[in-house]
């Protein structure tokens, strides 16, 4: 008990302490190194949660099979991103886009963001999870605006306004859940504790719970980037520093998704409440189709992959909306694969944009010739994200499509249509980016390849062979999700 609760404490304590220290320390080398060490420490603490005995769920913190998947994924990508960020930021300092003062701020905010996300995952309290998502969001808003260009400020402003509206709706939903729990659980702290709520959910007032879920889905759905509430996402990805694009796509969207899933489980525990499935399926499909069409007209490379994130979040929400062991399993797998692949792509894109000095797709050509390592990494990444075998996303998409065909053949038609559309757009862009006559700066890139190679290697491995214990684990979680 004590060892495990210590591990949970470390997952939270390391980032917040590191944030305080990093805010005070000057110097690039030292702080970037410390950022990596802190992220590694958090990852180790998270991994130790896998082996030690779980603590009893308390009033505030909880570790169960569901959130441990999210925590490990979160801290892993957080760690690799910190490695990527070190070389990325070095270049930004050289070109003068970031000043040393902002660098301090950047590293401190990075750790605060990791703290917020980890807190959201381990919290056992629907109020606390709201606060944590809010912290993570506000820090990313600040980081998106860090370059202080016109476009960056507009992106941050838009993100802030839409994010605030989303978070306000989510809070209203949270209050409604409390109101629903009030007559059954009684006043006070208990009526917000997740484990208590789920046990008693069957006796809650279903009408109130329904309305609450709609608010929560809209509120947290804004953060997931579901259409039509996605307007902030492409701008925020395109204008902020690329490490932030990577964590936004790979992690922050998952945090919001996790909150939605928690409340979905709550709703499913009440027999008289509406089924959350159709709502999520509709929003997921809308996002998928919308993003697939939007992919065709993108001229900015980071925007392109931002729309691809909307597409994939749509697929994941669709899968969880379908429900059932197989679709949930596929959704969970897809989420993990998407996080790894998309952040890997953003590592490659970050270096590419730096070496070429532009994010405009038309000005980047023939990468496989001018920068083979970066170019081929991008090719692997895009092939993976487009859902080609033998990479991991192919497998999860295949599972989603086949389970949809088996249960709701009509829904499979728009799903497959959207997937093919997105596939076409991505391959089209990839050919112009990666092949042909090289254009633009051909100077060798000073890049850190390790993070992206690690991500793609994991995705490839998962596509070929999923270890047995992992499959069992995911199946168990899929059953939990109902």
């Amino acid at each position: 008990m004590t060892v495990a609760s210590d591990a949970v404490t470390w997952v939270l304590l390391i980032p917040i302490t590191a944030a305080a220290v990093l805010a005070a320390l000057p110097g690039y080398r030292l702080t970037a190194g410390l950022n990596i060490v802190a992220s590694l420490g958090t990852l180790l603490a998270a991994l130790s949660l896998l082996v030690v005995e779980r603590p009893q769920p308390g009033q505030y913190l909880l570790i169960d099979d569901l959130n441990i998947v999210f925590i490990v994924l979160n801290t892993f990508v957080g760690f690799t991103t910190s490695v990527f960020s070190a070389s990325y930021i070095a270049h930004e300092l050289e070109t003068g886009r970031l000043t040393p003062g902002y660098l301090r701020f950047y590293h401190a905010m990075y750790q605060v963001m990791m703290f917020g996300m980890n807190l959201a995952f381990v919290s056992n309290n629907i109020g606390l999870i709201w606060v944590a998502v809010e912290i993570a969001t506000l820090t990313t808003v600040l980081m998106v605006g860090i370059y202080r260009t016109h476009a960056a400020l507009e992106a941050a402003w838009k993100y802030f306004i839409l994010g605030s509206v989303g978070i306000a709706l989510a809070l209203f939903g949270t209050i409604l859940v409390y109101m629903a729990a009030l007559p059954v659980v009684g006043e006070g702290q208990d009526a917000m504790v997740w484990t208590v709520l789920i046990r008693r959910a069957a006796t809650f007032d279903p009408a109130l719970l329904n309305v609450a879920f709609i608010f929560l889905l809209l509120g947290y759905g804004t953060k997931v980037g579901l259409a039509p509430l996605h307007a902030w996402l492409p701008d925020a990805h395109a204008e902020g520093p690329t490490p932030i694009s990577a964590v936004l796509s790979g992690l922050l969207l998952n945090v919001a998704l996790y909150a939605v899933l928690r409340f979905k489980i709550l709703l499913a525990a009440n027999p008289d409440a509406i089924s959350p499935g159709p709502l999520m399926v509709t929003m997921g499909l809308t996002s998928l189709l919308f993003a697939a069409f939007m992919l065709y007209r993108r001229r900015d490379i980071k925007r392109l992959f931002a729309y691809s994130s909307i597409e994939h979040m749509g697929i994941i929400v669709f899968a969880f909306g379908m429900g059932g062991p197989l679709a949930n399993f596929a959704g969970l797998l897809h989420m993990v694969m998407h996080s790894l692949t998309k952040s890997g792509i953003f590592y490659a894109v970050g270096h590419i944009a730096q070496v070429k000095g532009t994010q405009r797709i038309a000005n980047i050509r023939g990468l496989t010739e001018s920068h083979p390592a970066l170019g081929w990494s991008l090719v692997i990444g895009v092939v993976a994200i487009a859902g080609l075998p033998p990479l991991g996303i192919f497998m999860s998409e295949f599972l989603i499509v086949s389970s949809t065909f088996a249960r709701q053949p009509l829904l499979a038609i728009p799903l497959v249509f959207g997937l093919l559309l997105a596939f076409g757009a991505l391959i089209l862009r990839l050919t112009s980016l990666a092949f042909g006559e090289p254009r633009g700066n051909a100077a060798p890139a000073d890049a850190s390849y390790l993070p992206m190679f690690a991500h793609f290697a994991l995705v490839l491995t998962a596509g070929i062979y999923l270890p047995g214990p992992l499959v069992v684990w995911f199946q168990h979680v899929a059953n939990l999700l109902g």
Partner: protein
Amino acid sequence: MHNLAFDIAHLLAGGLVLISFMMLYQDRLYALLNIFALHAVVLAASVAWQAFIQNAPHLYVTAAIALVFKAIVIPVALHRIIKQLGIHRDIETAVSIGPTMLAGMGLVALSMVLMLRVTGAADPLAREDLAFALSVVLLGLLVMVTRRNAVSQVVGFMSLENGLVLAATGAKGMPLVVEISVAFSILIAFIVIGVFLFRIRERFDTVDVGALDEFRGERR
């Protein structure tokens, strides 16, 4: 006594909705800020009354925060910002007043129908409070979408947050964590917004969000 307690809570919450309506048709920034300060004062009174009838002393803290921070500090600060920027003359509304008011009425009707229907089992006071709170939240959203000026969007957002505080205090015995978090989020929100306003002014010499529109979509 119980009836009186109920009536006063009702009066204050209803007053909040009314003041939200008043925000909709203000076409000057200073006037909008003054109305917002009034909104915060009524909110503080409403929260304090809830603290009294629920016998929940910690709610007085929330009331105090609303009174000091939202009714005094923020309006004063925004007054100064507006003065510095020299944008005190008027604000353009994206939609004219008539349709805005009609939309506002529609939203209030919607929230009444929705909340009163689904909260049948709850205590009548909490029920009405929630219905009013949702109205305030939706009217705050309406202010945000009908204004193009950054300052008035901020005001719209804060009135929305007021609605949330009303809802949170109406829900009996809601843990303190949440109230603090609400107040705290407003604080953070304001810092963030302040930073943004500062930067936006620095860069654009205007806080009109419309001026940002030229950068919309694909850049370069």
